[in-house]
């Protein structure tokens, strides 16, 4: 009995071990290869549980998620032979496991290295055909597209699908940055001066306008005043004339008397009278003869 039991448990044990050696799981994010004595015999595995022959089959698994290749920023020469520092990153994932395994040995670092070389070459060519302005302000997507197309074909040979290349930083080298700062400063100084001068200009305009308005106002007022005075004078003259013309002889007499009174009203006015004067005739003779 015990022999039987032992035998049974041995069989069970062997079964369990054998079973565990002949199954393998592929995770949702993994890609797997089944090798048989060094040869790839199956590469298309969905996630889940799969079987293999113990000892004969060998399973290799890779990360099937989207990987990022973030290479170090590099200097590139533009069309006008200026340096630009460009930093890019690449998104890729395994497309063909078998090819990836055979060409890259399944090593992510190796894949990244090869990819970055391809991208750098592409970038160098693209940057060299553009001016600094084009690189900075131009359509990045368009610039990257050419690189992408070239790199995609090459990456395909490695079993890699290139999803996206994006330019991250496009900077001027440090020493150039300094002169950019100086230029920006000069530019700001220009703007500041312009603003202040604009202020002076506007202020002067406003003052001049105010002065003009004042002068015009006063001149117009003078004009009106003069015409008013003239009007008054004219009316007065008319009044005098119409009154005096009633008896011009009497007016001459009347007016002359008024003038005499006005002319000789002071003790300082000395009159030298001839005793023969008509109005002194009574002074000479009571008869007036």
């Amino acid at each position: 009995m015990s022999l039987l039991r032992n035998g049974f448990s041995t069989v069970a044990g062997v079964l369990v071990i054998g079973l565990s050696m002949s199954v393998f799981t592929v995770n949702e994010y993994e890609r797997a290869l089944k090798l048989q004595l060094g040869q790839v015999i199956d590469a298309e595995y969905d996630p889940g549980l799969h079987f293999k022959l113990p000892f004969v089959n060998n399973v290799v698994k890779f990360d099937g998620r989207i990987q990022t290749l973030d290479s170090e920023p590099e200097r590139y020469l533009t069309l006008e032979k200026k340096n630009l520092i460009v930093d890019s990153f690449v998104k890729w994932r395994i497309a063909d496991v078998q090819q990836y395994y055979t060409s890259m040995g399944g090593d992510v670092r190796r894949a990244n290295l090869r990819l970055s070389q391809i991208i750098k070459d592409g970038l160098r060519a693209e940057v060299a055909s553009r001016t600094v302005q084009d690189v900075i302000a131009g359509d990045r997507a368009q610039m990257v597209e050419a690189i992408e197309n070239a790199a995609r074909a090459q990456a395909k040979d490695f079993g890699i699908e290139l999803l996206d290349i994006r330019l991250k930083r496009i900077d001027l080298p440090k020493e150039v940055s300094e002169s950019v700062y100086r230029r920006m400063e000069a530019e700001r100084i220009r703007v500041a001066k312009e603003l202040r001068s604009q202020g002076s200009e506007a202020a002067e305009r406003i003052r001049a306008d105010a002065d003009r308005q004042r002068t015009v106002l006063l001149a117009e007022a003078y004009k009106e005043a003069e015409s008013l005075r003239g009007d008054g004078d004219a009316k007065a003259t008319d009044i005098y004339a119409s009154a005096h013309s009633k008896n011009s002889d009497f007016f001459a007499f009347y007016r002359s008397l008024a003038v005499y009174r006005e002319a000789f009203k002071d003790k300082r006015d000395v009159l030298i009278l001839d005793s023969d004067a008509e109005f002194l005739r009574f002074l000479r003779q009571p008869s007036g003869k």
Partner: protein
Amino acid sequence: MAWNEPGKPGQDPWGGNRPPRKDSSTDAVEQVKRQLEGFLGKIGQQGQGQNEPGSVPEGLGLGVGVGVIAAVALALWLAFGIYIVDPAERGVVTVFGAYTQETGPGPHWNWPMPIGEVTKVNVEQIRNAEIGYRSVKNVNNDVTGESLMLTQDENIVDIKLSVQYNIRNAANYLFTNVDPDNALREVVESALRDVVGKNKMDFVLTDGRTQLVAKVREIAQEALDSYKAGIQITSVNLQDAQPPEQVQAAFADVVKAREDRQRLISEAEAYSNDILPKARGQAARLTEEANAYREQVVSRAQGEASRFISILSQYQKAPEVTRQRMYLDTVEQVLGSSSKIMVSAKSSGQMMYLPLDKWMQDDKSGVPATPNMNALPESSASSASRSAPSLRDNLRNREAR
């Protein structure tokens, strides 16, 4: 969503309460199950077979013992498959590594390790990514390499962003990208530089802020969607958009200059506002004075004219007499108020000495006594008559000699 009923599978794991299987893994599970069933069935049969004869009681005990232990172990193992998903979380369920479903909040059951696995992902939590700075204990440390970037006009600006995001699709978040959080950072940084590079510095630093942020968000989200990162950007906030430190003084001066301009203009306006009303007042005075003059002149003319006419009408009644009277009145007044010398025409042969200048001087000393000299004729006449006697005396004296 298929609800696994927790606890129940522990009692009857092979019953109808199995979680639904998908794709090829279903076959594998089916196979394992069949094998396990067969294996357990054999044990049971063997136990029973031994039991029936009743020859060896220990065997029965042992068989039952093994069966019970196996059943308890199985039940325990299956009980480990119970898990609870928090309200903010989603459970991503895998069986043999294959994704089967996403479970919502509440208790659930899945195959325990090593067959199944549940990864809980917090989808409500707002995560934060900082571009251009890192805040450590509420202190923001600049990362100039990230924050300094070129604008279209080849100026350099300093921009700091914070991005809030949460997980929209837990399975995608887990299975499609190696480091989705880092992917977000890279994508946002790239989008930011793309947008800034397409705009002028003044726009970026002033009016363009909101537009800039919206555009960054749009580009970044689009990229993340293309990677199926399962990430939803909830907001992009511009923490800071400034000129670089090296040129900030110059930028500040421009702001000051703008204020100066406004100040100069305001001062000029103040000047204008000062002089114009005064000028208007002056103008009004000029016209009013002219008006007054006109009224005055006209009124005087009217007055004088009416006086003349009145006198004229009296004169016309007796011209000769009136004429004589008026003449004498005037002579009286004229001679009364002024100095006079009478010279006889008959003694024209003699030479006369008239010390006029001396009289003038004498008069001067006498003038202060008659301050109303320049007043109206009537009053001056009266004052003149007051000072007259001395002169007359003078004359008399001369005549007496």
